[in-house]
């Protein structure tokens, strides 16, 4: 149970970090496309700002989404255990894509997260859910070859 909790926590934190950096790059890319010069220190300061301010909001979206997605993935892995890792990866990705769509339909603005305005941004941001699925299953049920020692029987 503790292992599961830690794996889940790592999945949320990992996806939050990666997703935040992705959305920052999309926002800054839109500005550079408008001929705005952004030096490295400004870029890093923006990433740090977004980790502190956007990160918690994204984690708030990720947590319930991954909880539901991983329960579904667990059920599917019971049916087809051979594909457990894939179910968690797919579950995280599809779950987050659905969550974005639900949030956008409920929020007053058409698209809550600016990076999701383009298809590429939407796919990459959703992929952070898949990354979370990989982290979770990797830590919760590591495959034998992923461990230095053998799994307890």
């Amino acid at each position, binding site marked *: 149970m503790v292992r599961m909790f830690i794996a889940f926590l790592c999945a949320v934190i990992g996806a939050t970090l990666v997703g935040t950096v992705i959305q920052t790059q999309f*926002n800054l890319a*839109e500005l550079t496309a408008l001929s705005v010069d952004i030096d490295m220190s400004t870029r890093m300061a923006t990433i740090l700002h*977004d980790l502190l*301010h*956007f990160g918690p909001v994204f984690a708030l979206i990720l947590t319930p989404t991954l909880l539901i997605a991983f329960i579904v993935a667990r059920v599917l892995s019971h049916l087809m255990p051979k594909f457990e890792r894939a179910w968690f990866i797919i579950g995280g990705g599809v779950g987050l894509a659905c969550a974005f769509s639900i949030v956008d339909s409920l929020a007053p*603005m*058409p*698209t809550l997260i600016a990076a999701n*305005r383009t298809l590429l941004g939407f796919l990459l941001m959703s992929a952070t859910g898949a990354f979370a699925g990989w982290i979770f299953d990797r830590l919760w049920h590591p495959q034998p070859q992923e461990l230095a020692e053998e799994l307890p029987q």
Partner: protein
Amino acid sequence: MKQFIISLCLVLSTTSAALAGTARTEVVANNLNFPWSVAELPEGGFLVTERSGQLVFVSQTGDKHHVEIDLPDLYATAQAGLFEVMLTPDFMTSRELVLSYSCGTEKANNTCVIRAKLSLQPPYSLLDTQNIFTALPKKEGAAHYGARMTWLPDDTLLIALGDGFVYREQAQKLDNHLGKIVRITRNGEVPEDNPFTHSKAPEIFSYGHRNVQGLIYDSERDAIWQHEHGPKGGDELNKIVKGGNYGWPIATFGIDYTGAKVSPFRELPGIKPPLYQWTPSLAPAGLALYEGDLLVTHLAGKRLQRLRLVDEQWQLEGEYLQDLNARLRAVYVAPSGRILVLTDSAEGQLLQVSFED
């Protein structure tokens, strides 16, 4: 009528605590469905737009009648709908007025402006309706239309437009109307001395705006004052000049609703910085000139602010109407000198405000 008399008898004695005075309000009309703008008629009474699409005549005694209006392409939902009604400078002789509204469909809409003639006497109707401007491109969603308007001394019309929320970068591009203030003649033609000449958007007067909700010409100072909504913080008061770039979204004091930076820059070379800015946002949604001061109503901020120009800087002079606890959609100083305020709700009110300095 009974309701109006009761309301008038009550004469809300809302003496608001303020920085520099108090204000008194009287209810002119009740039960207006999300009223957006008001225009005082020279023969008495008011025209009020309701966002859902009705144009309402309110008599001086508070009686209401719907004005017959034909807008087949009206798109009314969320922030979209019927916006500003404004009389032409020669209304006394021409009986013409302009109306801004969102036109199109959920998938393809933007801000439109029509010019029409008001019939001579009640029950009023609009005649000879003619489209004089359509903001392009038509875009998806029902957010950020701008739609405030003002006349300039040369009888050209300024129309404020929004960025459509998800199209914010378009506010920096001069080939479209998103996030711009445009200038046209009363017939919808492009004045020869407009600053930009792109064939797709020769109407542009200034750019880099997010969602302009206040626009007024100050004849004494020969200045155009404007305010616009920032995202989370960064609501701006600007002095609009021909060809000016006001920065959205490359320079802003606000951040996105998610907490993310829209831009790392608050100021940039070539960008006109705001003369006054509201952080956190109060959502300014109306702008009027009163004895040289600016009156600003706020939606989220639920107050009327009075700003005064001191040493070339706008300073907060007083705050009023906070005890109404109402979102305030608009403020006007009518030709008669009356200060009119609209509250923003399904049971909105038209209020007359007087300061007790």
